């Protein structure tokens, strides 16, 4: 019998491997490609050095007042002193100095509540994790307000900064979860009146500009409360954010419902589960799992939109930045520095969440085979 001898592997042609191969394949594969590459490189070469110089090399990093940037010998780049001097306001707003620990505690608690469903053992997840999740916004708000806990009272007028963006977005999505799930259930319902009410609600809150909703909350809503009642502005904004979020999330959930095979309902029925047992034990967990990437995308949108609150006079981070820019001690035109800082903060949060979302999506792709 003839013996099989595999041929020895030979090295690849020199222009297919290494730096030269890479350049040839990725930058200069055709004349058009080469032209595009050269144009891009020329553009980057003309812009990047100046940008890097302004951002880092000639920038002023230390100091406490604008004088540090104007002083003799100071660099003519970005004045990061502006950002560091206003840092506390950017994050905590005008919350009193001595009470900042309350905001920090709430932020940590928020992180813990979000992590709870992943960390708690199975038995506790439903009985402890979910109720904790749902009451957190109320406890957190009461804690920051202080009166209920016998702490110093801090009026919502002093709440502000990036922490307010986070709290508002988180508190809204948490309450929107059950609400939007009900709306989505209603939209699937066979009861015509309930169905049409839910459709009107969902389409209204999705179809109207969020800014119009905020105005509704700030100028129209007070007209609807009984005469003489004075509902806190932030509370009204919270209600509006919850409803806005619910409209979008209800549509996300509707997509999730459509992805659940009919057989799941039938199997639950054939075991004799009641409607609510079927919905909460079988359907809801699967819908949440399938919808997670879209829920995160919706949350990112809500989170970015919390900056719109500036327009109705809520002191979230962008509003604080605008105030700082018009402060009489800082009139040197630091708009670029301020905006770059806020942009960076949002970018990190949103990009991080979208990475998580695409990871979940990849996992779902491979694991959700039934």
């Amino acid at each position: 019998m003839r013996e099989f001898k595999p041929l020895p592997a030979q090295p690849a042609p020199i222009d297919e491997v290494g730096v030269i191969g890479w350049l040839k394949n990725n930058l200069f594969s055709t004349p058009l490609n080469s032209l595009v590459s050269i144009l891009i490189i020329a553009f980057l070469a003309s812009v990047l050095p100046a940008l890097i110089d302004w951002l880092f090399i000639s920038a002023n990093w230390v100091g406490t007042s604008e004088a540090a940037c104007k002083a003799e010998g100071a660099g003519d780049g970005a004045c990061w002193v502006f950002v560091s001097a206003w840092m506390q306001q950017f994050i905590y707003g005008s919350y009193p100095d001595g009470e900042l620990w309350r905001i920090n505690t709430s932020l940590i608690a928020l992180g813990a509540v979000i992590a709870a469903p992943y960390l708690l053992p199975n038995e506790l997840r439903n009985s402890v994790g979910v109720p904790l999740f749902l009451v957190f916004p109320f406890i957190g708000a009461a804690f920051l307000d202080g009166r209920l806990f016998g702490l110093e009272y801090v009026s919502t007028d002093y709440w502000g900064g990036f922490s307010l963006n986070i709290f508002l977005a988180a508190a809204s999505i948490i309450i929107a979860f059950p609400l939007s799930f009900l709306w989505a259930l209603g939209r699937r319902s066979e009861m015509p009146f309930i169905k049409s009410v839910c459709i009107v609600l969902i389409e209204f809150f999705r179809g109207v500009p969020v800014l119009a909703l905020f105005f509704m909350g700030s100028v129209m809503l007070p007209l609807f409360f009984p005469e003489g009642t004075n509902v806190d502005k932030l509370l009204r904004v919270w209600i509006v954010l919850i409803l806005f979020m619910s409209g979008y999330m209800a549509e996300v959930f509707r997509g999730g419902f459509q992805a659940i095979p009919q057989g799941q309902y039938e199997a639950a029925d054939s075991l004799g589960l009641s409607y609510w047992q079927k919905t909460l034990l079988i359907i809801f967990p699967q819908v949440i799992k399938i919808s997670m990437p879209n829920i995160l995308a919706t949350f990112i949108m809500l989170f970015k939109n919390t900056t719109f609150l500036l327009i109705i006079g809520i002191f979230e981070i962008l509003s604080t930045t605008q105030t700082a820019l018009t402060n009489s001690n800082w009139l040197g035109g630091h708009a670029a520095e301020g905006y770059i800082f806020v942009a960076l903060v949002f970018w990190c949060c949103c990009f991080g969440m979208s990475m998580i979302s695409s990871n979940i999506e990849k996992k779902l792709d491979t694991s959700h085979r039934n």
Partner: protein
Amino acid sequence: MSNEPLNKSLSTDEDVIVIKDLNKWYGSFHVLKDINLSVKKGERIVVCGPSGSGKSTMIRCINRLEEFQRGSLIVNGVEMIEDVKNIEAIRREVGMVFQHFNLFPHLTILENLTLGPIWVQKKPKDEAEAIAMKYLERVKIPDQANKFPGQLSGGQQQRVAIARSLCMAPQIMLFDEPTSALDPEMIKEVLDVMVELAEEGMTMLCVTHEMGFAKKVADRVIFMDGGEIVEENTPHEFFDNPETDRLQLFLSQILQH
């Protein structure tokens, strides 16, 4: 057991399922036409017929996965009426196994099995798990208890689905083409479990094209076409001596390989 099923009295004490003049329409399409059938306790019935003949729809009516417009249906002495509690009561007595298993993908095998006993029968968790393990051993996969359905083969999933139904201690088991979605080499392991179940005296109503299974365990074989029961007989007579040309044609089509 000879062929006297149709003219037999329609409700005796032994009858666990009595279907009388059952009619169902999808819109204006008449899917089930005057179905009459009674099943005695411990009887094993195989239903076959071409696709679209209404055989699945019929057995899905028995645990009210499908509504019907006319006729009556008595399951285990309880008449099916438009009543939420009543429907839930009947579903507790009737187990169902689906073509596509329909296990709950977000729950482990053990959780799939204990869900019904815990939430419907209100049993303590320990007891429910003991029952679940008992049936998992009967379908020969106790070692998979803590896996998720997606990690099991099709045959294993279908055996879990059978065990899930058995955990509710049903009086009647319905099988809706339990082997049609399986790879050929997995059909046997599922059929073995079903044969064992039949030998223990479970009342079974089974839609299937596994003619070997029908010959082996069925007391009666029913042939449906166009929403009607066309023919009904003992397996021996059914296969060797079909009465109608329609059944003859059907048998020649499925047995001619």
